[in-house]
């Protein structure tokens, strides 16, 4: 399909629409970036397995015309690990929300990174539990309003990039839904990377996060992604170190990928038999 002009209809299951996302939600841009990435990579739809957990973001798996596995809350990476290890030829993509990936699913996240299994995890970070109606997440940070923090949050947040790096992910990147092309390019690189890839995408939830925290409507929130983020190492950081950096933070190609390492275990075990 690479040579054909991109048409999202080639990649979605129209039967499954309309989607569940609120007007102004950033998730549609992530979906579109993902589909454009797949298109530009020229991947065969039969070789992609998209595995997700529970939450607004996790509904992506049903909308796309790939093999799709909509699992249980937080555990998508463990299901995807089974898919990938049992059939390493498949491309494994796992879209996750921030709560799904790093609260209930935090253990699977760090261990998938540690193993360096060839899965692309897309963390769609809107800093809130949207599907259940606006509870704070481990990415909300302090001093935020949420239905479970009526007096403001006191929970500190994770930095997804730092966490993924420390846990051993061999590709770590960040972008935002304002930067849709960058988003697509980073997802492409993540999918192509042989190893565990973490792509954090900042995406707005105007309904629950924006409204409660007086961050404005969807347009305003996207505008904020433009003004509050910079490319890695930008000079603007000198004046304003609080800016969020975007780009590729880690790209290591010298760490053995898990399924390939296991193939060598099979070779060793089979030799012992002969």
């Amino acid at each position: 399909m690479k040579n054909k002009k991109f048409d999202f209809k080639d990649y979605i299951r129209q039967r499954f629409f309309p989607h569940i996302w609120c007007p102004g939600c950033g998730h549609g841009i992530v979906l579109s970036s993902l589909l454009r990435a797949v298109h530009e990579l020229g991947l065969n739809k039969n070789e992609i397995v998209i595995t997700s957990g529970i939450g607004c973001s996790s509904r992506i798996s049903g909308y796309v015309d790939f093999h799709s596995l909509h699992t249980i809350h937080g555990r998508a990476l463990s299901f995807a690990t089974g898919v990938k290890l049992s059939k390493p030829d498949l491309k494994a993509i796992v879209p996750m929300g921030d709560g799904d990936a790093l609260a209930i699913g935090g253990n699977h996240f760090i261990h998938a990174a540690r193993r360096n299994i060839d899965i692309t995890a897309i963390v769609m970070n809107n800093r809130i539990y949207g599907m259940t109606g606006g509870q704070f997440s481990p990415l909300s940070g302090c001093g935020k309003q949420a239905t479970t923090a009526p007096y403001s949050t006191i929970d500190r947040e994770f930095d997804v990039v730092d966490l993924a790096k420390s846990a051993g992910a061999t590709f770590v990147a960040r972008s935002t839904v304002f930067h849709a092309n960058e988003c697509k390019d980073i997802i492409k690189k993540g999918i192509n990377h042989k190893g565990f890839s973490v792509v954090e995408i900042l995406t707005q939830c105007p309904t629950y996060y924006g409204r409660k925290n007086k961050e404005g409507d969807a347009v305003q929130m996207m505008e904020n992604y433009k003004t509050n983020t910079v490319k890695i190492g930008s000079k603007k950081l000198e004046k304003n170190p609080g800016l969020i950096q975007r780009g590729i933070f880690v790209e290591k190609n010298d760490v053995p990928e898990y399924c390939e390492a296991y193939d060598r275990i099979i070779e060793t075990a089979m030799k012992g038999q002969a």
Partner: protein
Amino acid sequence: MKNNNIRFIQGNEACVEGAIYAGIDFFAGYPITPSTEILEHLAARLPQKGGKFIQMEDEIASMGAIIGASLTGKKVMTATSGPGFSLKQEALGYACMAEIPCVIANVQRGGPSTGNPTHVSQGDVNQARWGTHGDHSIIALTASNHQDVFKITVDAFNMAETYRTPVVLLLDETIGHMREKLVIPEPGELPVVERLRTSVKGGVDYHPYLPRDDGRLPMSDFGGEHRYNVTGLFHDMWGFPNNNPNVVGGLLRHLVDKIENNVNDICMYKEYWLDDAEYILISYGSSARSAIHLAKNRRARGIKIGVLELQTLWPFPTEMIREKCAGAKAVIVVEMNMGQVVTQVKNAVDNPNSVFLANKISGELISPEDIKSLLRMIQGKGV
């Protein structure tokens, strides 16, 4: 000539041999007493035949991994014990809902909680049935000796593939750790069921969740020509989430019926001296060994006593038990819990007042003597 098919091994190893015979391709697990030997032996055995083994970060992840692997067309299994079995329950329910073939061995130890890790119990019978939330049906098998552990492990894989369901192997610490003889059957001696795959060609609509007339759902492997959705939500024939009352009610009924309507095919048991039995001992797993020992001993003294050893615990073989126990003066259920199977037996028989429980809950194996004292009381002979 040395016969490599005769082994002197632990029950957990017999389970591993059964899994290999059944064609296991993929195992994911986490260390837990008293099931760890299953994990250890498969770590060695699976790569020798090109299969895959992975030690996951926790019990939940192990359950997730086997479900994922099953969808690529592999025969899969995990093994655990009480606390781990509790942790797996949500994903086990997912496998029920999404109809994913998989085998879960639970080598039972004393509970609740961390309980009595190195000692025997049969306290998870009801958890195997109702551990996950929501209504559903399940298959759970058990055995009292290594030859039977081997066989029911093969049966577990066969049933998982036939009915597209998780199958629980309820072993126990005594069986798992005890060593005895196992004769590994020749290939072909026991039936091995392969997955039913769809014959629908690529490019033609495939309905992954539209059951055939016989209730079976032919599968298509992930990576194949048919791309479809798998979800733990109630879903339509395409696998798409759907909460239409007819869809929800119809799917739940299908999930239950596909197992309960086949109770006779799933029901496995052994019987000893039942023909003229006035007293019937109903037991399963390691406690059945004591029941059989006692019955043999009492028979020698002229008491008409027999044993019904259950190998299928779920779906519960209600009809079979009612028939077998129809002529008995008394039925004694021998088990190592506070009475999980005895409740089912009371429901099954015509005269529930004739059903008694001989149990032991201390972490020790119930002995023939333990059963004998209850039998003597029932016989009016005093203790």
